[in-house]
């Protein structure tokens, strides 16, 4: 059976509703705008928020890049790319520079994004205060009153327990001195890339039915204390075993034969483009 889908899977009314929420999100940086999250051919919690944003924004001339934890070829990324290509005919690319729309799960690419690009992040839990306060009714009021002691309290508890802030990912940020926002589970390493980003950053949570945004050139500051400043993960002394890159986010791998640990670029397209740029005799 061959069903003729509308361009980009959704009907025009749905796309318009998502775009309208997106515009509101851009107008109020960091504010979570509720939207009517649709049923998708993939399960909620598997990137439906990001996918709905992508489908509502994509045009025929766009070039799409989809990454899953830094990788262009993982199952999730490949399937999302297939769905978008089948319903739009849009070309997909691996190189960050070539893309106009980048949908990502848990990473911001190593290559700095530019003005004409849009980064779409998939978000599992959009509410930065959820652990502190289970009630949505209450957290909405806390946001309205700019009462963010809960976000700092969670960091304080981590310092009391472990001696340092132990957020592995999703370290809360303050957007334009107003809203505290969950940056999606990107590593702390990527948080500074949001600050005054040239590209528009959109965040979509399909299961939680929220869209929020960091417009280009917006101040994004990671929460920290005076005597416990924010620190990104450090890869001091480590480099990628394939391309030799330093100063990027590295995965630690263990050679099962020898038991040795080695490092590799987490951003696969960055690593490959560095390898391709090498002279042939190297």
């Amino acid at each position, binding site marked *: 059976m061959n069903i003729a889908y509308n361009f980009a899977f959704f009907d025009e009314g749905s796309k318009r509703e998502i775009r309208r929420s997106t515009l509101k999100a851009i107008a109020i940086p960091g504010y979570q705008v509720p939207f009517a999250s649709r049923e998708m051919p993939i399960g909620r919690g598997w990137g439906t928020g990001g996918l709905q944003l992508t489908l509502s924004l994509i045009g025929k001339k766009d070039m799409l890049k989809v990454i899953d934890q830094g990788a262009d070829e993982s199952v999730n990324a490949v399937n999302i790319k297939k769905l978008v290509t089948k319903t739009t005919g849009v070309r997909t690319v691996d190189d960050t520079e070539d893309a106009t729309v980048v949908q990502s799960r848990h990473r911001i690419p190593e290559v700095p994004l530019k003005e004409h690009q849009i980064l779409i992040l998939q978000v599992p839990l959009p509410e930065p205060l959820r652990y502190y306060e289970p009630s949505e009714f209450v957290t909405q009021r806390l946001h*309205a009153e700019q*009462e963010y002691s809960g976000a700092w309290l969670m960091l*304080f508890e981590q310092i009391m327990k472990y001696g340092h802030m132990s957020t592995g990912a999703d370290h809360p940020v303050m957007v334009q001195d107003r809203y505290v926002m969950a940056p999606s589970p990107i590593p702390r390493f990527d948080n500074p890339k949001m600050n005054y980003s040239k590209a528009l950053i959109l965040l979509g949570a399909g299961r939680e039915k929220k869209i929020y945004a960091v417009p280009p050139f917006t101040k994004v500051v990671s929460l920290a204390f005076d005597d416990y400043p924010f620190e990104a993960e450090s890869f001091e002394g480590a480099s990628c075993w394939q391309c030799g890159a330093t100063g990027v986010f590295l995965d630690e791998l263990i050679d099962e034969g020898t038991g040795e640990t080695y490092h590799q670029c987490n951003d696969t397209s960055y690593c490959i483009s560095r390898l391709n740029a090498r002279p042939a005799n190297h």
Partner: protein
Amino acid sequence: MDDFDRPILSVNHLSKQFGPGCIHCSSGQSDSLIKNYCPTCGTVYACRDISFDLYPGEVFGIVGESGSGKSTLMQCLYFDQEVTEGEALIASYKNGEANIFEESSQQKRYIRNHQLGKVYQNPILGLRMGFSSIGNIAEKLIAAGGRNVGAMEARGRELLEHVNIPIRRMKEPPKNFSGGMQQRVQIAKALSNNPPILLLDEVTTGLDLSVQANVLDLIKKLQRELNISMIIVSHDLGVIRMLADRTMVMLDGKVIEYGLTDQILEDPQHRYTQQLVHSLL
């Protein structure tokens, strides 16, 4: 005017009703009410036209039976409930010229975090049971603008020591503690940002006698050393006799007697107060 003559908190004509009211109960002034309940429309008049002043360094007691509106009054003062009518002025906030009940919710939060401390009868309401005890104290400090972990930890230690919680247990969550210890953590939390006004709602109810004495001693000590103004709500006249300088007696949402604690206990004027004093064991 001397600072001693000027009240730090004045409450004027505070009223709180639950329900819309009707012509039969006419804003709680009618005789057709059963106690403070209107049988026609079901409205409860929890607080009816309450006025009093609290002076710097004073301990002000409020007594009354269950359902007399004591706790509702305290909840209104701490913005847990919205008042129906009335005003309250705090001398250290906008020079005592702003009715705190009419401020924006952000300002109310500021007042709560900077001017007030409250200890609830039930520690679950005042503490986050799953967070560490020191975290609970830090919460109030963070809310008041604290962003230095070292300073907040030091303050937390000092306060927990003050209320006799062993330092080795400061990172434990209050849910692991006994009722008396939870109550003391609550007091430490309420005191953390040196509020000029402390609201204590039935702090000793439900504690055993020796722990009660402990908590009362602590409150007495705090009042003497830090000169904090306190409002103490209790149905226990023993607690009021020991702590309060002046006392107000409430019945069915109304103030029925008001004066020096000794006077009220030795020479009660109202029928209900007489009954209350005589039933004191």
